[in-house]
């Protein structure tokens, strides 16, 4: 197992660093520790509330929304995803957009959780860079290969919040931004074009076809 072999080497090296140097590595501070615990707790909570069998779609949606609003920086990410168009948006458009962004996430992902009821989140390690912690983890399933996930976490206003989810090297917020900005550009730079597209998409996802 190539990955675990590397993991072993990394672990051995980590052990050596800890034992051989008088100071602990800078990474293992309160912030990264806290971020790692935060994601661990998120995994447990998801397992117990969201990734269970035999609940209705509505119930799963409610639980997902609750979990997301508690742990995800929807406002900050929503802003970032809009890029420079955030400033062009009116107060009204901003409010409408953020609400639609939330509904869009719920409509897109809730159905997928059903396929992950046997999934286990395994947390590997955490690093930090500037004000972000990167919690490296993998999702293990009995039937499929593990999926690598990095959780980017910030600490603001006394709590941890997720600001990005990087799946197999693909940043979720980066992908959303490319799409949203592209839609706005194709509507003559108007945020209202994105709002219309989101309304349509959410309606589609809520229909049986989605």
């Amino acid at each position, binding site marked *: 197992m190539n*990955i675990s072999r590397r993991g072993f080497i990394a672990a051995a090296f980590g052990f050596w660093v800890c034992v051989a140097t008088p100071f602990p590595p800078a990474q293992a501070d309160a912030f990264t520790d806290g971020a790692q615990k935060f994601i661990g707790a998120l995994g447990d909570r998801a397992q117990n509330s969201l990734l269970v069998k035999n609940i209705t779609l509505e119930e799963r949606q409610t639980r997902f929304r609750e979990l997301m609003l508690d742990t995800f920086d929807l406002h900050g990410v929503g802003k970032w995803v809009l890029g420079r168009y955030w*400033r062009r948006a009116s107060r009204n458009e901003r409010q409408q957009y953020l609400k639609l962004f939330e509904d869009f996430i719920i409509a897109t992902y809730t159905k997928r959780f059903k396929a992950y009821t046997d999934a286990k989140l395994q947390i590997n390690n955490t690093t930090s860079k500037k004000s972000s912690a990167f919690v490296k983890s993998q999702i293990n399933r009995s039937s499929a290969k593990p999926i690598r996930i990095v959780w980017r976490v910030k600490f603001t206003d006394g709590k941890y919040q997720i600001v990005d989810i*990087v799946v197999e*090297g693909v*940043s979720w*917020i*980066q992908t959303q931004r490319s*799409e949203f900005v*592209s839609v706005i550009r194709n509507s003559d730079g108007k945020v209202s074009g994105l709002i219309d597209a989101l309304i*349509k998409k959410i309606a589609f996802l809520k229909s049986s076809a989605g």
Partner: protein
Amino acid sequence: MLLLAVFTLASCASAPSNDPEALTEYSKINDPAEPTNRFIFGFNQGLDKAIIKPVTALYRAIFPDVVRNGVHNFLNNLKTPVVLANDILQGEAERAGDTVIRFAINSTVGIAGFRDQAADWGWEPHEEDFGQTLAVWGVGEGPYIMLPLFGPSNPRDAIGKVVDFFLDPINWWAENSDNDWVPLTRTLINGIDTRDQLWDVLDDLEKSSIDFYAAIRSLYRQRRNEDISNGTGSKNNETPNFSDNFELDDPSDQPADNSSKIVSGKNSGTAK
């Protein structure tokens, strides 16, 4: 080919000339031929709907998972010489070793490559191609291009594809023995296998995206960066840097209808 080049040039989206923010955005998207690319993307989607997807659906209906996985493994094993050449060209000794060991195990115990026994024994597969090698050598990707049939690419990766074709001893043999049907058949089966592997991903993505073209463009780039850095994320920087964008409490953060002056330059809203 020439016709395509002319067509591409003629329909280039014009670069914004006066607004620095718009210019940054334009160069970040790095898709100067977007109208043409979207046209080709539409063509590819039509082709997918009419032929590729139905054929793949048939393939999925006829053969169970075990068989399709076997075919996938077999095709991967055939790629060994090209992967190995690129491992070496990138100076990746450990990965080159893995590639050789994998080939030895899978070609024998793995029954001509149909079983990925090596992965079960701890030698996980990896991909390498000449596009990645060029990237490791410092060649930039160039503008995004959508190739007919082959899908998302860029000049670097397109050249890489051609070089990989000529690096492959199976193609030398086919050329020298007049067995042109071999590369052709292999390309076709490869295409069906790739479509099969992407079945759920593309379905989900098409359903959930509001701009499928832009989503594919972003995913292609991110995945390539990930592959180039061999999954370490070092060159991909893992995730965009938004340090200055998450604190949007400065005056320029006022909504458009709330302030007449828009401060540009500060908090420019673009990720590095």
